[in-house]
């Protein structure tokens, strides 16, 4: 059964509401003297999203995050957090964000509980709520059993979780995590990842930077790849793969790979290039012009006897390597 919808009814339907943005950056430029670390980055992060910021060291990730954390007052362009301008309303922005730098500081003379009590008081949490909130963040970060342990007795992974517990104390909407897993062993890294997943499920918006690609692919709803201060690509993982597949490499082995056949293949509309290697041909395909299936059909029609037809697999690392050229600032 189908339902007919009249024009009047269509008018009454409210238009789809644009997603509320947790972060909005337009043409962001950060310079240190003559050196331009960030060169006109623009991005939007809707609320509830986990945005992964990927790039080699010195690409401009930390500079961008520091702008959002209100720690970088000198920049050009626009940066809004929850609609608040980071430049003109830094205090209000700070109330909404939890920032964890790559070199997080923990006071080693304090116990974990004293450390959290200090920051809870500093965030002006009412005394009546303080204990409950601290118990909650300790439980969330799985540190309840270490509450009375001195901070300098904790492992690096635990200190990292304690730093995360600290940024959660004032229940921020947006978490800015700069390389939260750097320097951690595999177990600690998995623990931090699970904790971030829990925060994602709680509806927190997270902007996380890393150069450990497979970690972000398991966690992020969208990623942005940055190199030498420029955003090379951004979108969901599927979007990025699709972008990359426009020039997908297909490896071929043929029984009859003659120069004539090679010339014929080069003439197929949609073939960008063909590189003859020792045991195979590597064909770069414009996938928006010619799909993989159509290319296969065209090959067979041109008389090619295929023993191998292998489109190059795409993963985060391949994507990263394709999109970046290994340039450093």
């Amino acid at each position: 059964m189908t339902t007919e919808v009249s024009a009047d009814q269509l008018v009454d339907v409210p238009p789809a509401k644009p997603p509320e943005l947790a972060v909005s950056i337009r043409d962001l430029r950060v310079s240190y003297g003559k050196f331009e670390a960030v060169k006109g980055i623009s991005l939007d992060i809707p609320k509830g999203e986990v945005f992964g910021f990927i790039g080699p060291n010195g690409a401009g990730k930390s500079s961008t995050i520091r702008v959002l954390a209100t720690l970088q007052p000198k920049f050009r362009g626009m940066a809004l957090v929850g609609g608040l301008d980071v430049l003109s309303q830094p205090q209000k922005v700070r109330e909404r964000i939890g920032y964890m730098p790559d070199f997080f500081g923990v006071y080693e003379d304090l116990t974990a509980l004293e450390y959290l009590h200090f920051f809870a008081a500093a965030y002006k949490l009412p005394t009546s709520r303080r204990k409950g909130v601290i118990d909650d963040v300790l439980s969330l970060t799985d540190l309840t059993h270490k509450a009375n342990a001195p901070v300098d007795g904790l492992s690096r992974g635990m200190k990292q979780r304690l730093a995360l517990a600290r940024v959660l104390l004032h229940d921020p909407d947006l978490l800015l995590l700069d390389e939260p897993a750097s320097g951690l062993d595999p177990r600690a890294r998995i623990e931090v990842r699970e904790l971030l997943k829990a925060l994602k499920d709680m509806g927190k918006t997270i902007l996380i930077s890393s150069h450990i690609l497979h970690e972000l692919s398991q966690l992020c709803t969208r990623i942005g790849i940055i190199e030498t201060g420029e955003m090379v690509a951004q979108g969901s993982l599927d979007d990025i793969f699709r972008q990359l597949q426009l020039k997908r490499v297909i490896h071929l082995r043929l029984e009859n790979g003659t120069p004539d056949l090679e010339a014929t293949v080069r003439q197929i509309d949609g073939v960008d290039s063909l590189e003859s290697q020792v045991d195979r041909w590597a064909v770069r395909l414009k996938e928006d012009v010619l799909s993989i299936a159509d290319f296969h059909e065209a090959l067979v029609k041109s008389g090619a006897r295929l023993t191998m037809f292998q489109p190059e697999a795409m993963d985060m690392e391949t994507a990263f390597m394709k999109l970046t050229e290994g340039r450093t600032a």
Partner: protein
Amino acid sequence: MISGTRTLFNWSLKSDAQAFSPHIVRLGFSGFMLLAILAAWADSLGGIAPGLNFFDWICRLNVLLISVSGISYFVSAVTEEKDSGSLALLRLAGVSPLAIILSKSTSRLISSLMLLLIQLPFTFLAITLGGITWQQIISSYLALAAWMCLVANVALFCSVRCRTSGRAATFASALLLAFFAAGPVLRQVATLSLPADVIQACRGLYEEQQLMSVVTRLDAILRGKVEVTFLSAQFWRNVTAGGGMFLLSLLLFNRYSDPTEMNPHGKSAKVRRFTVGRCWRLPLVWKDYLFFAGGSTIMLLKSILYVGVVLAFAWFHNLQSPGDARWLSSGLLQNAFFTVGGLLTVEMLLYASNTLFMEARQSSIAALRMLPYQTPVVLLQKVGACALALLPGVLILFLLFMYRSDVFTANDSLPQLAVLWLFFTLLSTHLTVLLSLYTKWAALPIAVVVSTVSTPCIGGAAAGLATVSAQAAALNGISWGMWFGVVVNLVWMWLFVLLPIELEIVNRWNRLSRDS
């Protein structure tokens, strides 16, 4: 082992030679020497023996610089590795204690001896100004070098023995103060009517202290009390004691660099709850008071120390004048007041050198910057914690003043002294805080030298203005005019000298928050 030790030592010296900043410091020092010579030459136009006066001043400045370096620059040689947790890594890498000590401490000693060496060509110019011979100059520098050797190695011992730089600095300060205080105290005690054995022991100790004292030695060289010899008893005693402290540090190194020994958290959770308690409304004051300044335990210990100092003077007065009903004579009251004031100054300088430096070293500036406070509020809370920790000293000063305020108010030079002391203390603490955000080690000695050099100029002007204010007030029949002048000069000092430093501290703090 020898190869590893030599490599680390060479690397340390090479990195010092290749780094830019040590050469800038040396260049700055040379410029300072030229200025000092110019000042001495200008001084010579209306005086006698300007070369001697100039060199005397340089020597006193060197003694101050070396002594202050002991409680800041040299004392962090090993503790900075303990603070950053890298000492265990060095040990795991098989680096021997000798290699660590040579590369961390002896290289600093050599680098500092270079600062003495660089002065020599300039100080020889003092001969042309008159009043001093080259033999006196060489003897003085040998005395200073030996004193530096002793101070550096005492500081090294403190650095090996203590777990943190703060504790090592406190320990070294206590040892240095005890050394300098021992002379006058022993001399006075020896004049009392005590048992002959005690008097004899005090005299022996006093003589030994005088033989070791660089101040006594320089006085002897520059006043021409003795025939100038290059290698005196002071030289040999200082070098031998320095060597002894070096060996002791080496022997104790393993014992005090053990990671299990380095964990200070022996207190149970119950004890910590009692001593630490709930966080205050001003959280940074709570944190710094308890975990930086040591909390109530250290407050109590300091109170006992200050009361002990005053009681020592009272005891001394009782021995001198057994029938006197007063606790302290005028002279001893002023001595006690200035001693407590001096200890308070040292305490302030030590707090100033570490309060922001510790935050920078612990990479916690960004976390503090994210708090819902403006930077000045954060910094003021830290000042508040230090002020709270200084209360025992301030309270004792106040009580001494109130005990017989007439002794102090009758002293005409007291307002100028107060202005100069306040100027020196505030300027040096401000500079120390600022420099501690720029330099890793030498904030305190640099700040003290800059303050010492600038106090006669700017502080003298301030004290002079206080006198002018007093005279103007007297002409107009205003009582307390002198103290009004003091207040006016404090405002002037704050506005034109301290406020620019405070603004730079805030700027630097904000810059570090994004760099950390």
